[in-house]
């Protein structure tokens, strides 16, 4: 027997896909979903079965590739974070009508909190809008089991099925007994049926009717029906729980001695909610509390509003993560118990920051030098942390840096002295959603500089390859698309590459770009230096580490700490001196050019100068 293994929720989901014969898996990285495809690729390498696994350029592309796989009869899955589903929503809405052939699972990982996202949106609402069923796991183990259920459900009703884990499922680890990896090769068969696969609006009407019929039947599907957790309990009140809140609630009900008193139900499929269950709850109980994340999806499907307590009644907070202490407070109040007072931690902790030696930091410093009064639209990635340097003014969503820069330009263009606009976007984000916006900016003659922060990887989500890297999800060699060629292909006439570690050259290049953009429209500067923590990168770094030291001339003015914000530069306020943390410093040497008083120097050079 294979031993129990410590498994991340996302690894458990990947194993679930493997065990259930998923043949095509696609994704675009995003926290908390990224490790699903990475784990699938790792398992695929071990098993060496002919499956297709890939990082796609964005979630919409990922969705459509996997969906076409399902159209040929194969089992397929696409995974992404919740805001990624926004990008793929066009495909999702339509695919729900057309249905599937092989089982098709859409994994959309939500991030209540939010911990690492721009919204707390509930993907289950998106399932509701698309009219597809959604499963809501409470733990890594249940997430893995639900993958099997999702494929069955999908094939039984020929419908895409959503699996909606949350951060606390994706990034929890649990001991799990691995099952057997199934490999039943299926016959690949694309049945041409234009009335379905290329349906015109007239046929769409019929497909919509068929979809509603499917949903009616799924609301009675036995395998996904709610579970009664504590058969012995009997009261006029009942509790409905779902997702990770169910995990919290089970522990809390036992700790509060309510397990034998208040009936408790766990919903596995929040949409469509089982019809018999709705009737049973309304017929049996006077008061029902619903605890779910993040929107009241289950709650709003329960008729008779007078009996239901939840998000809509304000009994459960509508914003933020349902931490177990919050769930305890809600259940205590519902059960008529004295709520426990919990002291909240007052210490805000340490804010995130770019790594010491991160090339983005140098680029941001240079941007502030080249366009000190500029507007700085930015985007989604590690470089959002350019906020700390005052070099990021806006962060909306993937790709918006480019289009927002255009919007600012159009808004200000008739002013006497329009501000310079310098936008920043990461390499992966540029590929994902920046390209169409750049084409638009070229056509509209938008005066702005776009700095593409090209660190040769998708850094924040764990260093997945970008299209420029030319590697697959399992590290296999593929073709690559170069950013310069792409930028030039968009019609940009000013496109230069520079390493931001060469700070002075980089600043002067940016100044040229700003000047050019005022007259001629978009200018692009590619800031190229590999990410320091990219584990995929095999070749040796080109940069020779520079040993820096702070001379006695340092008067502790704090300029470097405030404007460069490197964690390796530590200001000792009492001694009026900046020190370099030797553990954190990676020897980029950029700070030498940052100090306005030339107090930061290279070690050897300082000595040779002093002996002159």
């Amino acid at each position, binding site marked *: 027997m294979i031993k129990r293994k410590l498994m991340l929720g996302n690894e458990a989901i990947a194993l679930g896909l493997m065990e259930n014969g998923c043949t095509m898996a696609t994704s675009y990285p995003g*926290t908390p979903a990224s490790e699903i495809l990475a784990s699938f690729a790792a398992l695929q390498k071990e098993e060496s079965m002919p499956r297709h696994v890939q990082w796609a350029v964005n979630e919409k592309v990922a969705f459509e590739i996997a969906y076409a796989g399902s159209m040929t009869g194969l089992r397929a899955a696409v995974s992404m974070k919740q805001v990624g589903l926004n990008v793929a929503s066009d495909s999702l809405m339509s695919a729900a009508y057309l249905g599937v052939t092989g089982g098709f699972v859409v994994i959309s990982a939500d991030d209540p909190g939010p911990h*690492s996202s721009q919204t707390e949106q509930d993907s289950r609402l998106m399932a509701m809008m698309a009219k597809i069923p959604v499963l809501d796991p409470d733990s890594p183990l249940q997430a893995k089991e639900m993958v099997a259920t999702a494929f069955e459900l999908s094939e039984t009703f020929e419908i895409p099925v959503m699996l909606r884990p949350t951060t606390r499922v994706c990034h929890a680890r*649990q001991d799990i007994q691995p099952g057997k990896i199934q490999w039943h090769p299926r016959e690949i068969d694309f049945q041409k049926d234009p009335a379905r696969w290329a349906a015109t609006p007239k046929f769409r009407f019929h497909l919509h009717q068929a979809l509603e019929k499917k949903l009616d039947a799924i609301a009675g599907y036995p395998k996904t029906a709610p579970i009664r957790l504590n058969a012995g309990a009997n009261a006029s009140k009942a509790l409905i729980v779902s997702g990770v809140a169910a*995990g919290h609630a089970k522990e809390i009900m036992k700790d509060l001695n309510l397990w034998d008193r208040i009936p408790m139900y766990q919903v596995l499929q929040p949409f469509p909610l089982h019809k018999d269950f709705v009737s049973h709850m309304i017929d049996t109980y006077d008061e029902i509390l619903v605890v779910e994340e993040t929107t009241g999806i289950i709650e709003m499907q329960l008729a008779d509003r007078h009996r239901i307590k939840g998000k809509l009644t304000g009994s459960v907070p509508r914003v933020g993560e349902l931490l*177990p202490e919050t769930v305890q407070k809600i259940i205590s109040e519902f059960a008529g118990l004295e709520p426990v007072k919990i002291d909240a931690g007052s210490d805000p902790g340490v804010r995130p920051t770019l790594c010491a030696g991160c090339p983005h930091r140098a680029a941001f410093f240079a941007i502030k030098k080249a366009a000190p009064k500029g507007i700085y639209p930015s985007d989604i990635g590690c470089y959002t942390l350019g906020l700390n340097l005052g070099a990021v003014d806006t962060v909306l969503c993937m790709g918006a840096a480019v289009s927002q820069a255009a919007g600012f330009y159009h808004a200000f263009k008739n002013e006497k002295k329009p501000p310079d606009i310098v936008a920043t976007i990461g390499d992966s984000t540029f590929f994902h959603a920046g390209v169409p916006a750049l084409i638009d900016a070229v056509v509209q003659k938008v005066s702005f500089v776009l700095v593409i922060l090209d660190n040769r990887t998708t850094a924040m989500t764990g260093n997945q390859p970008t299209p420029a890297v030319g590697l697959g999800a399992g590290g296999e060699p593929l073709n690559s698309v170069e950013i310069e060629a792409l930028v030039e292909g968009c019609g940009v006439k000013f496109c230069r590459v520079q390493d931001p570690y060469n700070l002075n050259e980089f600043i002067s290049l940016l100044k040229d770009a700003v000047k050019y953009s005022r007259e001629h429209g978009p200018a692009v500067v590619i800031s190229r230096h590999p990410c320091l923590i990219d584990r995929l990168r095999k070749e040796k770094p080109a940069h020779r580490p520079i040993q820096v030291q702070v001379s006695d001339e340092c008067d502790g003015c704090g300029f470097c700490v405030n404007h460069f914000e490197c964690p390796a530069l530590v200001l000792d306020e009492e001694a009026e001196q900046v020190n370099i943390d030797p553990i954190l410093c990676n020897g980029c040497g950029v700070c030498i050019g940052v100090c306005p008083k030339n107090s930061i120097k290279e070690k050897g050079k300082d000595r040779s100068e002093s002996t002159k």
Partner: protein
Amino acid sequence: MKQQIVISGVGGQGVLFVTRLLAEAAIMKGFSVFTSETHGMAQRGGTVLSHLKVGNFSSPLIRPANADGLLALKAGGLNQHGLYLKPHAWAAVNRREDVVQDSESPVFAVDADELAQRIHQPKSVNLILLGFTIGVVSTAVENRLFCSLEDLKAVLEKSLAGKKKMLGDAITALETGYNGLRTI
């Protein structure tokens, strides 16, 4: 066996590594285990917090005032995450200064940064504090840790099999912490 432990630090210190090591030890000893981790942007130098629950649990998170122990890789972690500790729970903290002992809730301190420099492994603060915790909790606390130094070594030997240098360094760090007891 039911134990809940909170591990806190900042991104890059190896909070996740320590959490995983303890979780693997729990599995090796036949216990069920749940951990919860911080990933994504917060990992970039920001505060990182792990929850570890050994035994039968259904939630991956520890509620405030429920933890049996706290490992703080930064001195500030005690103030920041001490709220998770239940009465009489222990805390092991990486800090320079000694801590005034409160017999009800013992706090043990070790200068893991300094020890890490001394063994020329500046990035081994996490394993030093873990070794220290094992030593101090097993001798000074009634409710002992669910695993021993030997258990952790066995896990390291398995997970770092074939990486002789890394394994040797890891065990040195662990033992340095274990033997670096100061407060008792």
